[in-house]
């Protein structure tokens, strides 16, 4: 068993053939994670006890001849913004350094019910705010492909553990690109499903109308399988969708002949770079598979960044109000008054990026500014959605880059928040529209840095998205061009 290369299918086959037990897979993953983690800092903690119990439960089921679930024995990492009962959940923040949740997120419950084995909690930018994983209070994550570089963010740890092989699949969260961008930087598959497809119950909120839980995998099928397990209506999340969850495996036929692909011109303008070249080679490969490619236009794109940073900061300023020193958070010791307790606790507990966003969000919601900022941003958001609806009237899927550039060096953009914000340019529109989108590996630069191709489809069209991604992967990615 090569733990770093195992797939969900490989584990299922191995367990069936009694090549190994779930407990053995679990121990191998824990051991490998323990050994590798110092290089990347991708795990904040390993949940060995819980993992072993889950693995043993799978083995016991198998011994009784029962179905142990779609994820039986599969080592999974969970981003640390997703709560795990009895397992410390910090959100990458000093504020929650001692927070042990009393309940499990719905996605966590579901993946464990399907036999998944949670190996540990993955590092991330503080409260999922960041594009490089350098905003974690517990140190940055390093990209396993190149340890001098960032893994992307905010789900940097979740991408890194899958790339590194210390987990087979992982859960991340995406608000403006936090799954797809790290997937792209680390050379793995990352999926942001339709808004409402996966329950947000237990996902610590950053920007509620934009937050998604989604899977990472080393291949499309693994990511799709994890999504299928966690997706579906949840009574604990009023915004979760009633739409039935299809069997995504059935969609992945490898046959994409006649599929209509749109290239939004606004996403390719001025993209004269290695990244642009790789994406265009990927598009060539799709043409070879029989896809029809045409140019489309998403004219509202130019306002997307401003719109996104108004909505997400506004919601964040409210969502992060609960960290006040009264309850489960840290509490500043030297406060003499209530106001001091709030000020000192929040001053000490939050990092710079959180504070920046809380202040921006508080400002845009303030009396007299609401109409000019928040309300206008919501109108732009509608325009962005309308653009996509118009495009999906013509094509089945859109192809774009995930990021304008591959993984950058640690510290490179840390002092320039605006440059960091602009790196989200291609990913935030999908979140604003609530449509499914994903990053699938699309070759590497001359320096060996992975580049991801983004596929976007209409609401609840994860099936066609996976079919396209898997066909591309099956044909060898850019090598198929």
């Amino acid at each position, binding site marked *: 068993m090569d733990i770093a290369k195992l797939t969900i299918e490989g584990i299922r086959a191995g367990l069936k053939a009694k090549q190994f037990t779930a407990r053995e897979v679990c121990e191998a993953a824990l051991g490998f994670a323990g050994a590798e983690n110092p290089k990347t800092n991708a795990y904040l903690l390993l949940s060995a006890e819980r993992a072993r119990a889950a693995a043993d439960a799978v083995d016991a089921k198998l011994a009784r001849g029962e179905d142990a679930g779609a994820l039986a024995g599969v080592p999974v990492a969970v981003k640390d913004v997703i709560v795990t009962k009895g397992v410390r959940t910090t959100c990458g923040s000093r504020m929650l350094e001692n927070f042990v949740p009393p309940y499990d997120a719905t996605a966590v419950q579901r993946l464990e019910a399907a036999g998944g084995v949670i190996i540990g909690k993955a590092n991330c930018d503080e409260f999922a705010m960041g594009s490089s994983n350098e905003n974690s209070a517990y140190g940055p994550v390093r990209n396993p492909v190149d340890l001098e570089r960032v893994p992307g963010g905010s789900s940097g740890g979740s991408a890194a553990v899958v790339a590194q092989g210390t987990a087979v699949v992982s859960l991340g969260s995406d608000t403006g690109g936090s799954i797809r961008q790290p997937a792209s930087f680390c050379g793995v598959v990352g999926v942001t499903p339709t808004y409402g497809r996966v329950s947000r119950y237990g996902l610590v*909120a950053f920007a509620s109308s934009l937050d998604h839980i989604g899977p990472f995998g080393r291949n499309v099928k693994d990511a799709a399988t994890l999504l299928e397990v966690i997706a579906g209506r949840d009574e604990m999340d*009023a915004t979760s969708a009633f739409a039935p969850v299809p069997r995504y495996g059935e969609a992945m036929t490898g046959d994409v002949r006649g599929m209509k692909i749109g290239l939004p011109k606004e996403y390719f303008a001025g993209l004269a770079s290695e990244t642009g070249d790789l994406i265009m080679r990927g598009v060539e490969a799709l043409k070879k598979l029989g896809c029809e490619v045409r140019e489309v236009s998403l004219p509202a794109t130019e306002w997307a960044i401003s719109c996104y940073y108004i909505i997400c900061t506004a919601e964040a300023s409210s969502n992060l109000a609960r960290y006040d020193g009264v309850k489960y958070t840290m509490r500043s010791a030297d406060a003499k008054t209530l106001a001091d307790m709030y000020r000192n606790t929040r001053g000490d507990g939050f990092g710079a990026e959180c504070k920046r966003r809380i202040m921006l969000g508080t400002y845009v919601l303030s009396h007299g500014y609401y109409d000019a900022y928040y309300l206008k941003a919501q109108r732009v958001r509608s325009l962005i959605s309308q653009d996509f609806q118009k495009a999906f009237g013509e094509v089945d899927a859109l192809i774009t880059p995930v990021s304008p550039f591959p993984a950058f060096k640690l510290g490179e953009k840390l002092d320039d928040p605006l440059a960091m914000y602009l790196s989200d340019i291609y990913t935030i529109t999908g979140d604003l529209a609530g449509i499914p989108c994903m990053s699938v590996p699309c070759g590497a630069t001359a320096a060996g840095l992975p580049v991801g191709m983004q596929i976007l489809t209409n609401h609840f069209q994860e099936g066609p998205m996976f079919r396209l991604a898997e066909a591309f992967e099956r044909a060898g990615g850019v090598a198929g061009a």
Partner: protein
Amino acid sequence: MSSTELMVPAEVFATYEPVIGLEVHVQLGTNTKIYCGCPTGFGAPPNTNVCPVCLGMPGALPVLNRSVVEYAVKAGLALNCTVRNESIFARKNYFYPDLPKGYQISQYDRPVAEHGFIDIFVNETHKRIGVTRAHLEDDAGKSIHDGYRDSDLYTYVDLNRTGTPLIEIVSEPDIRNSDEAYAYLTELKQLMQFIGVSECDMEKGQLRCDANVSVRKRGAEKFGTKAEVKNVNSFRFVKLALDYEIQRQIALIESGGKVVQETRLYSPDTGETYSMRSKEAAHDYRYFPEPDLLPLRISDKWLGEIRSTMPELPPAKRARFVEQYGIREYDAQVLTLTREMSEYFEKAAEVSGDARTAANWVMGDLAGALKAEGKEITESPVTAEKLGELVALIKKGEISGKLAKEIFPKMWSTGDGAAAIMDREGLRQISDTSALDAIVDEVLAKNPAQVEQYKGGKTTVIGFLVGQVMKASRGQANPQMVNELLKKKLD
């Protein structure tokens, strides 16, 4: 300034017009909280009726309770509001230790109900007070500042109440004096109790009132600057607080000062209001639509279903009582004070066949007995049926009103019906002619002088003779029959 001395002369006072709007929070009496399944009971040990949702745990999400919506719709209908087909929840952001999320999930520009009214009756005048809106929100917890050993060092937080459903009912600035405010609150409370959405027990915080007050010169169109008097915990104090605040503002303006927009609190001890925070320090609640909840959609069908469960409300009931039972408007008001009392009266009236007498009994002997023992009408040992039977006996002439008054306390203490008590105590009227014959003969024999007077033309003496018969029968003789028998024998 003390609240007892008149701060401005009456003739100056009369040149001003107070403008008052009330904001009333009513706790809805659902079994579970508004956004989670925790029970809403009062008095549980601290922090026991809680879960990740109402504790505002990271990652927890609200889910709207269906019966809360139904209660709110009922309240909206009772307030003559338009119930919106679509209403929106909004976050109201502020920091407070007993507000675990750092925001309330309230409603802002699209509340569940709006554009209603409450009719009040003050000083023999009917007046309509507009209801701007009624919106849903979650209650906060409680900060406990004393009662613990180290309360001098710490404030404790109890989150049991967090997430209890509230509707906030906002009136138009139509109220012009404290009597109208008192009548509005009384009527509002009665409506909420009638439709069963809240017990409105102010001691348990189930009804809370804030008042916006300003004054302007009579005839002026523009409102004056208002002050908000918050958290006054009884209707009487609301009245006193308003009286004080109106005087204060007029006195301030008269002395060349200006009313500042601020939040004030009322002190029952001094009878005065005092400043809590000025507008500069006022909250900016940064309302925005709650992204965790979908818009609340109430279909016409659902609205119709809820409407069909609405009971007859006090204003309609009062009108019907006057019309149907021929009772006075004042009596109708008293009999519709609570739903239970109105139901009791109607049952008693039906059984008795004499609604006006039944009304007198409910408001008289029954109300007196209830008050004496501090009982609710639902706890009355004398049921509506039994009171109705008692009244029916009077109506049929089987007992005198006087005897009924003797029987009633026995019914009260035993819970038995009038008939059973009369049988047991031998209180049945003697309507048997042969039995009465003997008594009448005896009385006539004993009082020859009076018999002579009668025969001599002084027929009024018959009253004395009837009395003697009644006395001899220990009050049980049917007085009408006695009268007839006496006349027959004497004439």
